């Protein structure tokens, strides 16, 4: 079970929920589960955010595994200078 915390546009897309408990062992399972509960949310996540697992930010999380009881955030992608 992963603790998924949402804010901003994602939170509003999820009906204002700031925190969700999602059963997922990989990033792709997590995305599918979120899309199932809140259709359209995946388009706001995939390719536009990085995945943060317990504070580590992963820019390309396609094959990422989600450890149990980890804290998940979707962080906007930004460019450096």
């Amino acid at each position, binding site marked *: 079970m992963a603790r998924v915390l949402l804010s*901003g546009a994602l939170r509003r897309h999820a009906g204002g929920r700031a925190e969700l408990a999602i059963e997922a062992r990989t990033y792709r399972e997590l995305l599918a589960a979120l899309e199932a509960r809140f259709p359209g949310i995946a388009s706001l996540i995939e390719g536009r955010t990085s995945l943060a697992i317990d504070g580590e930010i992963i*820019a390309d999380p396609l094959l990422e595994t989600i450890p149990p009881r980890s804290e998940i*955030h*979707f962080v906007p992608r*930004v460019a*450096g*200078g």
Partner: protein
Amino acid sequence: MSDGAEGARKFRWVGTRPVRPDGVDKVTGRARYGADLALPGMLWGRVLRSPHAHARILAIDASRALAMEGVKAVVSAEDLPEIRSEQAFVGEGPTDFRDLSHNVMARGKVLYHGHAVAAVAATSAELAERALAGIDVEYEVLPAVLDLDAALAPDAPLLHEDLVTKGVNPPPQRASNVAERVEMGHGDVEAGLARADVVVEREFTTRPVHQGYIEPHAALAEIGEDGRATIWCSSQGHFMVRAYTAKLLGMELSSIRVIPAEIGGGFGGKTTVYLEPVATLLARKSGRPVKMVMSREEVFRATGPTSGTRIRVKMGCTRDGRLTGADAHLEYEAGAFPGSPVTAGAMTIFAPYDVADVRIVGLDVVLNTPKVAAYRAPGAPMAAFAAESAVDELARRIDLDPIEFRLRNAAREGVQAPYGPRFKRIGHVETLEAARAHPHYRAPLLPNQGRGVASGFWFNAGLQSSADVHINEDGSVVVTSGNPDIGGSRASLAILAAEELGIDYARVSPIVADTSQVAYSDLTGGSRVTFATGMAVVEAARSVVRQLRERAAAIWEVDLDDVEWRDGAARLRAGAGREPLGLAELAARAARTGGPLAGHASLTARGVGAAFGTHICDVEVDPETGSVRVVRYTAVQDAGRAIHPSYVEGQMQGGVAQGIGWALNEEYLFDADGVMQNPGFLDYRMPVASDLPMIDAVIVEVPNPGHPYGVRGVGEVPIVPPIPAVANAIHDATGVRMRELPMSPPRVLEALEREG
């Protein structure tokens, strides 16, 4: 072998200050930058730029130009394939290829004064320049949108008829000049601010400023009859140039080879393309190599400054200095196309602090000024100006030392960042403590002098890097990477290779290879090269060490596990019985023991370490003229581990100088028609040597567990604190709070008269 980040292992090369291997060419004038390259039969290209800030292009007629002396080709948007809007992540950040194409060559509309409309190639620069007058363009001039209020007005003229604000749910019905709305934060900011004993609510404005690299953009392109193109150019990433040029021209990646020249400074401004696609197009159309070099005026008018901004912050704290709530509203000017760094500004504005209830909303606003490009910690310095000024005001309101106030709120490991995740191991507390302990913080001040403090944050980047480590037959080493070396990164990579292989730094030759000679590498920027490419070099070197141990084990006919690599030689763990085999000896026998010795690594760097800096600035203000002089400056920054301390200090000192220029005198001045009035180094006032004191760069090392040597990126943090540090120093000297940049003498004098 490295012991990871925490151990106090004695390094032989890491932390020393050897001379950079590419240095001799740079001090003798032999190093070749973008404009220093030439080919036989080469033509010169020049760009025709829009005289209007906003106009529809009705017709382009180049017939007169084509008939002029020496003219060989003219191109415009018609020569570029039409690209549908496609958000892409090539390297650094979000890039929309349709917008990129329209910025490289205007299609349908010109969106800022200086926007490229057409280009001509001729047998000399003068003839090409003259031929521009032979290109007749028919415009339908449109009303220009030149500031945030004009852009946000309900009836504002629209730059892009199809621009609907992203990040709004449900999406707005009408198009507008707001490209995106971002929102982030956690907790309940109203409740947080209600708990505060003291609340400060202020508005800050800043102007567009330019990266100011001394080398104008330059490119030389050649394309063979087989359609294979070679581009020589100075950029922050030649793989980015290849990818963008291929996309814009509809060419295969494999038919473009980009060879990096030395780069004369970038600071983010050369993380995109302006000339390369145009030069390649002109070369294809004329059948001859084409060289294009921008004038300084073109660099100002037509290459990315960073955003002008308007930022409102509201911050509250308890009487004993604990932040309870922070709210910010950011409006960033994107220029002609979407893509301001408002998201990074929103993510960084309160990042140095542990605030339970925080909300940040940001707008990315287009207007008829040059399209912005990345500028060192993009979006963060303006946001720090607002937040760190407000923090300074809160500290004074409760009479608490500004560093003590920051220590009571400093983000640390486990604290939730405003942009979501909890921080891993970070060094903000350590930089604050080092600043407070520094003699500068207690030094006496003279009349009309004041002292300001500010902290700054940047995420730093990982992204993709590749590196090869080859062992020559004599045991000398070649380190190949795909990252242009702007700030001495060749030296850092050579240090890491020498450390891993246990050999003398002088026997390592670091090479910046072109796109056909090394695997894909993301660009030099985002403070990532020593971190990510360094990681690739370490991994490649370790794979070579494994091969060396295998060769020694084979020669000694022992198990691999019995052989260790230490101080540049294979040694039998069991000790006696075998003379160590050094790198030179193993290299000499490579042919007979399996072949050349070479290691490679290509990776997406993980374990990026965010970094913090805390700066102390003393200024002297002339109360009668408003002129502000920086008389002392100390920058403290967490580098995780300084691989080559001189170049870490150099990044800190350079970032401080750019921050001070941004704070005091740099700004884009536009007239009523959106024409920049000061496109040159006389009236665009960057700091000169006599404007600045020595800059004391103090390196703090809180190792980053995610890197084999504990490295954190250092390039971008140092530009974040200077603006608020200068502003807070001016307040300390005069009692006046400056909230508008630049803090030039007229503005300071006006503020002194108003409030002083």
